[in-house]
């Protein structure tokens, strides 16, 4: 029997787990919406105040929600031995790491981006600005998942590594958060969107290699 390629296996597994026990899709959505819901209670409900900070709240909620289920992405593969098999395949491990992170982003990250307009409207942000802002949230979210993936791979062999992942990943979120917040304020024509895209491309170039080095460490 021919074993499926690790890349396809990674995608199929992530998509298959989307509705499984851990509720891969629903958990980050619930966290994202819940975190945003708390904000009006804590900073006040004046429409002018909320509309000025609404896009920033979405960035914070997106950054935190991207880490919610990161702990399980590589840990599950380490526990059931899949990682060990992938490390011996001909397919380079960095491609497998990239595929795992991208698949996880499609399941847990993209729904959050689709959710930014309704939550943004609830936070009194101008609805016309929210649709173009989805591009920025998508780019930024991908960078969050890539750096989070590196942290998740580093903490794969650590029991209860969830908070460790947050501590490792959050400093790496800073450039994306800055450019992203500026880009959503400037709108699609501004230079910050280009900087945001550059930061995401940088993450795309570095993170898979760092994650694969960390995964090799986890299987040893």
């Amino acid at each position, binding site marked *: 029997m021919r074993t499926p390629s690790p890349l396809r296996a990674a995608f199929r597994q992530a998509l298959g787990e989307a509705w499984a026990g851990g509720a891969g899709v629903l958990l980050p959505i619930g966290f994202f919406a819940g975190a945003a819901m708390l904000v009006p209670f804590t900073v006040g409900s004046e429409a002018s105040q909320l509309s000025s900070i609404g896009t920033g709240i979405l960035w914070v909620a997106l950054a935190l929600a991207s880490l919610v289920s990161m702990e399980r992405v590589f840990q599950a593969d380490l526990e059931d031995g899949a990682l060990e098999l992938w490390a011996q395949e001909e397919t380079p491990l960095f491609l497998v790491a990239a595929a795992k992170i991208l698949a996880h982003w499609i399941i847990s990250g993209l729904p959050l981006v689709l959710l930014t307009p309704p939550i943004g409207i609830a936070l009194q942000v101008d609805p016309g600005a929210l649709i173009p802002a989805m591009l920025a949230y998508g780019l930024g979210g991908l960078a969050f998942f890539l750096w989070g993936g*590196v942290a998740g791979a*580093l*903490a794969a*062999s*650590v029991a209860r*590594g969830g908070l*460790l992942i947050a*501590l*490792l990943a*959050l*400093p*790496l979120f*800073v*450039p994306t958060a*800055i*450019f992203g917040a*500026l880009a959503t304020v400037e709108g699609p024509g501004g230079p910050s969107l280009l*900087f945001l895209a550059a*930061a995401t491309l*940088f993450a795309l170039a*570095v993170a898979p290699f*760092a994650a694969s*080095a*960390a995964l090799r*460490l986890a299987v*040893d």
Partner: protein
Amino acid sequence: MIRAFANPHRFMALSRWLAPACLGVGALLIVWSAWQGLWIVPQDDYQGGDIMRAMFIHVPSAWLAMASYMGLAVTSLVWFVWRHELADMAAKSIAPLGAAYTAMCLATGSIWGKPTWGTWWLWDDARMMSVLVMFFLFLGYMALRAAMETRQKAARAGAILAMVGAVNVPLIKFSVDIWSSIHQDASVLRLDGPAMPPVYLTPLLIGGLGHMVFFAGLTMMLVRAEVWRRRADVLIARKLAGA
């Protein structure tokens, strides 16, 4: 050069006298700089009067904070490529010292900022943000090492994280520089010579040198402690195997 220091026996023989010497010389220089700064140099009204004397701690700790992250990245790279155990021990030792100097930089900066700018903390200041992010990078590095089961895994995971952090530092720096800054421009070293009068500059540079030497001495002490710890582990393992 790396080869010569990579030999633990040679390192132990050298650091046996070099580490205390560095600590002594560094402490002398720091005390001299603090004495000059606190009692001798005239107060500068433009920089907020007597509070500018905080500079003689604040500026060296900022230098050391940056230098120690560089040191962490370089020792991690050396360990990752050549697997010299001393490089890993140095990285492990630098991390808490760097975190301490980074915390000291933030604390003295806040104390200096309150009377001169009227606030303890400025979120739109690029340098404060960079140092704060660096503080979290140090904390993450130490937490990751502590979470790993074995020494070898701690070394590998720490090296990967330190290198990922190091390639991100320019991007972090650039992104926070985008923010406007009300901080004064860096005024110690410029192409057309120092902008600071020598009466301030000399104690500052001597103090910076003192902190560097003291830092080197502390690092060597911690590496020595790590070498002894590993030797003790070997002895315990041997004893258990023999029993």
